[in-house]
């Protein structure tokens, strides 16, 4: 079930978010999370679920890193965290997709560790970094970074896209990626750097690549 309004927002021109004043995101998914936080709005949650649950499942299944049953379990864990942590979402700080991504990543890291029976009581959330600051660059970046990266991703050369998919979607370390693709570690590292350069990831704040 794809919501019509959602289609509209995604179909906007790439620079749509640039015109949002003061970096306040008004896109549908951010509003959804805000409604979940403020009103415990189950309808908004249902809409959010319909959009993101299939994407989280794809994330879990990519590269067969998890079984279908574990992928469903991950979807449940992530969506429950969305419900639980919605109040911590700040639409001026990050795009909803970025926020959901960080939750999914942490849940997956913990699930990987559980499955490998690593004996650590340390959870990804304990280590992870929650960006919570009012640094001016943040607001500026939140309003456009995610949208632009998504546009630029389409034009990424195949060899770089493949490596980013291994790293971000399949959750493979650089060395695992190198081993699976039969490439030297240095090649993987430099393709990752080329990709983030192409995607202008560090561009607007004048950050070095």
């Amino acid at each position, binding site marked *: 079930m794809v919501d019509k309004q959602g289609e509209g927002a995604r179909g906007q021109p790439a620079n749509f978010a640039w015109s949002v004043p003061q970096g306040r995101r008004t896109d549908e998914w951010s509003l959804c999370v805000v409604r979940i*936080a403020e009103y*415990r709005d*189950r309808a908004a949650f*249902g809409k959010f679920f319909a959009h993101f*649950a*299939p*994407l*989280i*499942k*794809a*994330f879990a*299944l*990519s590269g067969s890193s998890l079984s279908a049953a574990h992928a*469903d379990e991950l*979807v*449940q864990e992530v969506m*429950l965290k969305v*419900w*639980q*942590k919605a109040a911590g979402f700040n639409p001026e*700080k*990050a795009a909803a*997709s*970025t*926020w*959901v*991504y*960080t939750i999914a*990543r*942490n849940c*997956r*890291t913990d699930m990987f560790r559980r499955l490998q029976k690593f004996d*650590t*009581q*340390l*959870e*990804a959330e*304990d*280590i*992870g*970094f929650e960006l919570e*600051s009012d640094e001016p*660059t943040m607001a500026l*970046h939140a309003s456009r*970074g*995610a949208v632009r*990266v*998504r546009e630029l991703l389409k034009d990424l050369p195949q060899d770089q896209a493949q490596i*980013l998919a291994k*790293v*971000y979607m399949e*959750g*493979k*370390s*650089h060395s695992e990626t190198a081993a699976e693709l039969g490439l030297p570690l240095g090649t993987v*590292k430099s393709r*990752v750097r080329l990709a*983030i350069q192409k995607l202008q990831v*560090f561009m607007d*704040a004048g950050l070095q690549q």
Partner: protein
Amino acid sequence: MITHHPHSNTLVEFSSGTLPVAHSVCVSTHLDHCSECRSKLAKLDDLGGAMLENGTAESVSSSVFDAVMLRLDEVSPEPAANDATAASLSSMVKKIRSGATADLNWRRVTKSLRIASLGDVPGASEVSVYHISEGGKIPQHNHSGTEMTLVLSGGFSDETGIYHAGDFLVREAGDIHAPTALPGGDCICLAVLESPLKFTRWHYRWLNPLLQLRAG
């Protein structure tokens, strides 16, 4: 002023959740200090979000949705409180990140060097906190594997540079150095070793067994 940062590949591994636990602790502690790397991380997380949204949606059975809806009342809307009995390592990480290292389990190695092991952590042979007294020196040693170091307070210098609180550095296998704490205060560092370091000068070699500090 932070001048030594994690490499962008390291930030990518952090952002994609593929960096080992112990190394992630170093990176997140650096992030506490460094707004530049925080901005970079935010952007890399955006990349993760974009990859997620670009994925080919996989259909999710309505039973999964129903199961989640049934459980919504079970979860409290506030972030879950930490289980007080669990996670000594987790609280240790918080302590370290807040700079409170006084009650760690310190062992004196030389007059000016104390080391506290943080125990076994997957993906690293040894995670420890080093305390070098003001002006003190760590005997020259080499690394048989990569070592990641994060300066928590004070500073030190070695053959390659000067490092202050928040600075992040990586030594590769085979690098030999002899760090000296800067004047003006004790230096405390978090170090993650792939394999134990070895003192190279003969009159310090007897210390090597002392460095096998892995908590049992």
